[in-house]
C-alpha cells in the first residue's frame, strides 16, 4: 500500500478557496466522490462529521487528517487539498490547517491506521510539508509524495519501474546452420549486457525455429536492435528503429563493442522500404565476399535439413540391409529388404529437393521472395541435367545423365536466378504504380522461370562436363592422392568452422556421397568432429592454457564434437586464432589421414557418432577420431601460451 496508489491526481485540489473547516471538508468529500471512491456520499459525510464531533482530526503544524471508516466507502482512497492561509480546524496548537488529507477507509480492517501511520511518517518532515505547500499542480504534488515515499520505503518502489521500462536493447541472432553460433552469440550478448547493466532480450532464429521472439511492443519500446545474423531474418518489423546489422561472429567476439555502439547512438535508423530500394547502397558497405557468403549460407542452411534427414534415412537403409544380411547385394544395397527400401527411398525423396532448395534460397537471399521460384526451378534443372537436346529428343521431362550440373550447377542457378530477378525488378520500374500488384504474381514468375530455364538449359551441358570431370578425377585418384585429398578436406573443415572453407569442404563431401565417394565424406566428417574434441581435451588436461570461462565450457565441446557440430570450437579459435586454428587443422588433417589409411567410408552426411554404426571400418574411424583429437590437443599444448596465474 502506497500513498500514491491511493491518491489519484483528480482527487487533489491545490490552493483551495475554502475559508472554513466545513468548506474544506465539503471540498475533500467532493473530490472523493468525483473519483468514485464513495458509494453513498451523504452517509460518508455523516461519518466524517460524527468523527469530527468526537474531537478535531487536526494534529497541529498546519496538518489535518479528517477520516472515517464507513461502509459507504467503495474504494479505499485519499483526497487532498492545500488551503493558502489555512482554515481554523480546532487544532491542538491553535494554528490554522493548510495541508489536509481525507482518508476514506472501509469498515473492516486496519487500513486507515496504516494510511495514517504512513502519512505521519511523511508529514513529520518539515521540508516535505513545505514542498507540498508550494506545489502548483497535482502532478507536482504527487511526485513530491512519490519521491518522499521512495526515500522512506526504499524496498517498495523499484520493482514496478523495471517492469514498465521493458528492454533497452533487443537483439536477433541467426547463423546459417542455426545450431551453435546462433546461441553462442545470444549468450555472449546477454552476458555483456548484464555486465554493463543494460536490459536486453535476444531472439534466436535457430534451426528449431525462432525462440524468445521479440514482440511488437518490445520493438516499439526499445532503444535499438542488434542483428547479429549471417542469413536473412525478418527485418520489416524493425522499420523506423535504429538497427545495427552485423555478423554472428561479431556477436560472439565483441558483444560489448556492439552494445556500446548502440549506447553511443551510432546506429542508423532502419527503413524497410528504403532497404529494398537501396539494396545496392547498403550492400556496398559489406564486402563482396561477405555478400556472396551470406547468400550461399542462406541456401546451405535451408538445404541442410534435407541433407541430414535424407542422408540419415539413406544410411538407415544401409544399416537395415546390413542387419538383414543384404550387405553383398551390390547395386541394390540399401534398398533390398522391404523396410530398408522404404526408409531409403523416403530419404532419396528428401535428397531430390536438396539442390532446388539450395538454389531457391540463394536466389531468395539475393532478390527476396520473387527469387524463390526461379531459383528452385533452376536448381531442379541443374539436378536433373535437362538440356535443349534432351527435352527435344525425348519429347518428355527427361534429362541427360551426363549433363547433370549437380551442386555446382545449382549454386550457379541460385546466384544467376537472384541477379536475374534484380534485373527484372529494375526493368519493370517504368510500370505505373497501379500495376505493382501484378508484378509478383504474374510478371516475375512468368519471365523469371522462363529466363532461368533457358539459361540453365544452356549452362547444363557445360557445367555438367566440368562436374563429371571432377567426379571422374576424384574417382580415379590413386591411393596416395586419396590420402592427400582426405588430409586437405579434413583440414579445410577445421579452418573456419562453419565458414566458407568448412562449408566448401562439407558441400563437396555431401555431393561426393551422391556420387558414391563415401570415403570423402568420412574424411570431411572426421575433420569436422576433431576441432571441438581436441579443444575439450586440452581444457581438461591443459587447464593452464585456458581462462576459467573457457574451461567451464570445455565439456560441452566433447558433445558438440561427437555430434559433428564443428562450430563449438569457434569461441576458442576466435579468442586466439593464430594458435588454435593451426592446431585444429593439424588434428583434423591427422584424422583425415588415418581415416583414409584405414579406408573408412561414411554414407551419411551428418550425425557424427550416430552414424558410426553405418561407417565402413568403424574401428579405424574411431582410431582416426582419437588420433586426430590427441594430435590437435598436443598442438594446442605446444602452441598456446599459459594464462597468467591470476586467472588460473
Amino acid at each position: 500500500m502506497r500513498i500514491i496508489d491511493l491518491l489519484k491526481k483528480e482527487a487533489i485540489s491545490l490552493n483551495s478557496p475554502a475559508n472554513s473547516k466545513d468548506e474544506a471538508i465539503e471540498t475533500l468529500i467532493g473530490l472523493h466522490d468525483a473519483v468514485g471512491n464513495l458509494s453513498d456520499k451523504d452517509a460518508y459525510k455523516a461519518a466524517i462529521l460524527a468523527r469530527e464531533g468526537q474531537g478535531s482530526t487536526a494534529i497541529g503544524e498546519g496538518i489535518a487528517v479528517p477520516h472515517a471508516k464507513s461502509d459507504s466507502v467503495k474504494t479505499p482512497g485519499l483526497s487532498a487539498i492545500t488551503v493558502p492561509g489555512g482554515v481554523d480546524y480546532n487544532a491542538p496548537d491553535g494554528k490554522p490547517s493548510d495541508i489536509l488529507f481525507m482518508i476514506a477507509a472501509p469498515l473492516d480492517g486496519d487500513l486507515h491506521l496504516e494510511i495514517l501511520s504512513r502519512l505521519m511518517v511523511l508529514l513529520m518532515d518539515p521540508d516535505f510539508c513545505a514542498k507540498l505547500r508550494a506545489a502548483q499542480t497535482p502532478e507536482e504534488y504527487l511526485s513530491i509524495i512519490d519521491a518522499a515515499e521512495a526515500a522512506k520505503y526504499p524496498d517498495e518502489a523499484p520493482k514496478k519501474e523495471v517492469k514498465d521500462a521493458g528492454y533497452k536493447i533487443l537483439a536477433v541472432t541467426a547463423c546459417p546452420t542455426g545450431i551453435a553460433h546462433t546461441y553462442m552469440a545470444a549468450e555472449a550478448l546477454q552476458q555483456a549486457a548484464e555486465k554493463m547493466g543494460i536490459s536486453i532480450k535476444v531472439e534466436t532464429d535457430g534451426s528449431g525455429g525462432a525462440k524468445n521472439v521479440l514482440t511488437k511492443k518490445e520493438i516499439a519500446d526499445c532503444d535499438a536492435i542488434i542483428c547479429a545474423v549471417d542469413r536473412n531474418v525478418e527485418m520489416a518489423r524493425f522499420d523506423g528503429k535504429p538497427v545495427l546489422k552485423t555478423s554472428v561472429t561479431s556477436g560472439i567476439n565483441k558483444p560489448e563493442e556492439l552494445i556500446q555502439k548502440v549506447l553511443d547512438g551510432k546506429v542508423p535508423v532502419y527503413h524497410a522500404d528504403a532497404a529494398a530500394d537501396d539494396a545496392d547502397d547498403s550492400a556496398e558497405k559489406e564486402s563482396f565476399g561477405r555478400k556472396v557468403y551470406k547468400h550461399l549460407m542462406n541456401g546451405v542452411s535451408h538445404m541442410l535439413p534435407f541433407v541430414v534427414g535424407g542422408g540419415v534415412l539413406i544410411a538407415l537403409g544401409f544399416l537395415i540391409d546390413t542387419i538383414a544380411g543384404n550387405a553383398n547385394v551390390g547395386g541394390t544395397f540399401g534398398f533390398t529388404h522391404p523396410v530398408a527400401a522404404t526408409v531409403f527411398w523416403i530419404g532419396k525423396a528428401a535428397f531430390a529437393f536438396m539442390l532446388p532448395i539450395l538454389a531457391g534460397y540463394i536466389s531468395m537471399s539475393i532478390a527476396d521472395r520473387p527469387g524463390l521460384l526461379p531459383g528452385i526451378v533452376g536448381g531442379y534443372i541443374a539436378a536433373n541435367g535437362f538440356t535443349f537436346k534432351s527435352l527435344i529428343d525425348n519429347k518428355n521431362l527427361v534429362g541427360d545423365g551426363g549433363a547433370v550440373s549437380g551442386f555446382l550447377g545449382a549454386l550457379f542457378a541460385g546466384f544467376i536466378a537472384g541477379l536475374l530477378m534484380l534485373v527484372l525488378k529494375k526493368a519493370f520500374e517504368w510500370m505505373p504504380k497501379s500495376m505493382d500488384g501484378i508484378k509478383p504474381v504474374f510478371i516475375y514468375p512468368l519471365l523469371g522461370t522462363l529466363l532461368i530455364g533457358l539459361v540453365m538449359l544452356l549452362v547444363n551441358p557445360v557445367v555438367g562436363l566440368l562436374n563429371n570431370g571432377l567426379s571422374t578425377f576424384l574417382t580415379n585418384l590413386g591411393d596416395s592422392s586419396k590420402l592427400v585429398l582426405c588430409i586437405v578436406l579434413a583440414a579445410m573443415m577445421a579452418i573456419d568452422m562453419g565458414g566458407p572453407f568448412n562449408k566448401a569442404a562439407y558441400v563437396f563431401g555431401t555431393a561426393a556421397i551422391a556420387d558414391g565417394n563415401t570415403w570423402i565424406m568420412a574424411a570431411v566428417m572426421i575433420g569436422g568432429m576433431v576441432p571441438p574434441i581436441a579443444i575439450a581435451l586440452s581444457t581438461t588436461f591443459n587447464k593452464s592454457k585456458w581462462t576459467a570461462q573457457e574451461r567451464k565450457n570445455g565439456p560441452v565441446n566433447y558433445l558438440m564434437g561427437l555430434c559433428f557440430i564443428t562450430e563449438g570450437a569457434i569461441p576458442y579459435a576466435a579468442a586466439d586464432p593464430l594458435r588454435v586454428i593451426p592446431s585444429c587443422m593439424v588434428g583434423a588433417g591427422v584424422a583425415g589421414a588415418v581415416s583414409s589409411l584405414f579406408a573408412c567410408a561414411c554414407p551419411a552426411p551428418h550425425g557424427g557418432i550416430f552414424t558410426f554404426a553405418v561407417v565402413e571400418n568403424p574401428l579405424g574411424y574411431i582410431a582416426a577420431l582419437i588420433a586426430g583429437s590427441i594430435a590437435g590437443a598436443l598442438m594446442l599444448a605446444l602452441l598456446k601460451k599459459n594464462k597468467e596465474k591470476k586467472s588460473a
Partner: protein
Amino acid sequence: MISKDFTIKNKMGLHMRPAQQFVTAMGKYASDITIKCGEKSVNAKSIMLLMSACIKCGSDITVICDGPDEAAMMAEAASMIESGFGEE
C-alpha cells in the same frame, strides 16, 4: 526509569482520537514517555510519532517512563491503555 508491557485491547487500535487523548494526558507530566511497538520506538508525547507507529488492536507494546514523575505518568498511561481508551 520504569517500563511495563501491555496489549492493545480496543478493536480500532490506537487510532487518532485515543492517540490524541493519550498525547494530551501525557503532556501534563514532566517525564519522558516512549512506546515500543515491534521494531519501532516512538515519543508518545507527539501525536505524529505515535500515529506513525501504527499500533493496531492486539499489538504488544512496551511503555517506558523516565523522569521525576514517572510513577504517576505510568499509572495514568496504564489505566488509559487497559481501559481500551474508553472504547470497546
